[in-house]
């Protein structure tokens, strides 16, 4: 397949493996930020190609995993309300809220449509004027422009039955929160290529300088990831901490300005709760005052509540999300916590660190 096969050919990948083995003189810990990268690393067995002293830890970049329980509960309440149809990305279906998931809510009769693009939800709203359509807008800066485009499309069509349940999250504040933790072991980051395609990487220079960490904007194919790791190691070995762009075929320093304009037109930056991580300042987007009439919370019969954390829980998801421990080190991993019955957010989506480990390494 063109534009994919070129980045999976063994020769270049094995050449980078050899170069890495020559380069590395001591242990290094690198975090790949994006869940898509985690998935690719484990799917293609990239972790097995690295020199022993290099450790990858899996970051909090799985949008499904970090969507807060209270949002899932609101989505379920809306979907169970007569006259409302919830439109959602497929992989949100399995994520458990405080009582159940969208899958089990649908089994109870909730009206839920799985869509591929937010604009499909707008079209659905056009076709069903008798229903209120709520689009469950989750994801990082990658999916936020598409949500914004859906809102603008609904405005242009003067649709009065299209709403957004918005829970978009921003990557840079989460990385900052990680680095501020005294237990954080991360020495270098592979930044998420698709987030940077939209937002650029100008925000990362200050982060790299403040925390003395190299940040390499990295793609998702095996060759991208091997090259990203190599560039990061090269900086670490030479004592540098700059921002580099491995994913040049997609990412520009300033990002996609049109997409950013759409985001800023529709959303405002707010504090946002992250599942298992608590509230991170300025880490999310919600509808701004011009589009607040499309906020789905107006359709809720109960006031939204914030999720409560259970401190007796054996699940150490927070430490996994920060890279402090690897999934198998959690006492619940593979025992009370499995992809069928996730206790922790990273066990939910195939991009979550625990689920990815469970799938590819099994119950160790």
């Amino acid at each position, binding site marked *: 397949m063109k534009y994919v096969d070129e980045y999976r050919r063994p020769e270049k*990948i094995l050449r980078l493996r050899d170069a890495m083995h020559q380069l590395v003189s001591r242990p290094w810990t690198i975090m790949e930020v*994006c869940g898509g990268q985690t998935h690719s690393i484990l*799917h*293609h*067995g*990239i972790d*097995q190609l690295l020199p022993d002293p290099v450790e990858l830890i899996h970051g909090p970049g799985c*949008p*499904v995993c970090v969507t807060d*329980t209270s949002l899932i509960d609101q989505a379920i309440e809306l979907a169970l309300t007569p006259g409302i149809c919830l439109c959602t*990305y*497929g*992989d*949100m*279906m*399995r994520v*458990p809220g*405080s009582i*159940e998931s969208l*899958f*089990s809510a*649908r*089994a*109870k009769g909730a009206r839920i449509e*799985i869509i*591929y693009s937010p604009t499909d939800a707008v079209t659905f709203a056009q076709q069903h004027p008798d229903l209120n359509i709520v689009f469950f807008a*989750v*994801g*990082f800066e*990658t999916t936020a422009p598409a949500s914004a485009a859906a809102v603008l499309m609904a405005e242009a069509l003067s649709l009065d039955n299209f709403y957004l349940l918005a829970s978009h999250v921003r990557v840079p504040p989460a990385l900052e929160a990680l680095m*501020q*933790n005294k237990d954080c072991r991360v020495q270098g980051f592979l930044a998420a290529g698709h987030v940077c395609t939209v937002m650029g990487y100008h925000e990362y220079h200050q982060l790299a300088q403040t925390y003395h960490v190299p940040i390499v904007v990295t793609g998702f194919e*095996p060759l991208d990831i091997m090259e990203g790791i190599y560039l990061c190691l090269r900086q670490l070995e030479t004592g540098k901490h700059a921002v580099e762009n491995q994913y040049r075929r997609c990412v520009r320093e300033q990002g996609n300005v049109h997409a950013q304009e759409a985001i800023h037109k529709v959303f405002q930056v707010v504090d946002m709760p992250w*599942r*298992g*991580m*608590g*509230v*991170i300042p300025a880490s999310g987007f919600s509808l701004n005052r011009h589009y607040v009439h499309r906020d789905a919370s107006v359709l809720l019969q109960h006031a939204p509540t914030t*999720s*409560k*954390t*259970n*401190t007796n829980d054996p*699940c*150490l*998801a*927070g*430490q996994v999300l*920060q890279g402090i421990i690897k999934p198998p080190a959690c006492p619940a991993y593979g025992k*009370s916590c499995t992809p*069928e*019955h996730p*206790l*922790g957010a990273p066990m939910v*989506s195939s*991009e979550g660190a625990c689920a990815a480990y469970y*799938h*590819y390494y*099994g119950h160790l």
Partner: protein
Amino acid sequence: MNQDNFNCPIPHHDDERISIAHGGGGLMMHRLLEKTIFPRVSPEQAHASQDSALIADSLALSTDSFVVSPLFFPGGDIGRLSVFGTTNDLAMVGAEANYLSLGLILEEGFPKCDLERILASIDAAQKEVGVKVVTGDTKVVPRGKGDGVYINTAGVGRLINPVLRLAPGQVCDGDHIIVSGDIGRHEASIIVARKEFGIEADIASDLAALTPTVRKLIDAGLDLHCLRDLTRGGLGSALHEICHSNRKNLSFVLDSEKLPLSQEVNSLAELLGFDPLFMANEGRFVAFVSPADSEQTLAIMQSMPGGNAAAVIGTVRQEERSQVWVKSAYGSEKKLPILNGDQLPRIC
């Protein structure tokens, strides 16, 4: 933000209702079978893990239900599927179907011309595979209580070679694993036909009768050990089922480079974030064969219509625990994940 904030808020909960994922051919479906269905109605079958039962010395029985949507799709329709679905299940234990029952559940308002089209397709399929519909039943449910038409068929067939036992327990260390054609086309064609994701592609289902290929393999006297048709859950789920029911601590090692995959299916899978190993097929099977007969098995499969992409995709090896491994082009080996419910398009 401090460490205390990093607690997981998700409580444990059990499924109290059936969800779509229970029918996906993956882990959830197997748990439903093992924990809920088998213990109540058929405890002796709990570890059988076969799609057909041997009911007498050389007789096999199987049943299958068909709820596909849309009813007509590129490469087939629910009628043709309802015949081959059951005759293929019989073929996997080495039986050639002789008789079928046909149960039709029709929804009020269903167009009669569509029903006639489906019946014509059933008739053509039964002639093609040499089976006869000899009994049946028809029910009509109120509008909104069905999806046009659901079909159930059951089939009885005779073993082609009465002494040949094809089962997971027959798989041996060193066996070659051979797949009878390119994978994932049925699911890909259904995804395109449903128009759910706005994807346009020219992909026809692989729907086909497997009996002719199986008869040729058995008639050639090949040392076949186990056959399994790749339906819901795809090749990956079929391999897991066989691996975990052979009870001999055998592992399967797949070579990811050898998996036969058409460009169209590969592109669609990449676009949606699906793994083709877990995409459904309706005219493909996997065979476990002794290495000495691997070449001839492959040649027969490749000579059959639609079988030109058949390939040896892996081998069986003795290990401490039964596992399915996938070897990458870079030499690394990874466990093949177990499909949980249905595959769902990923967000990014």
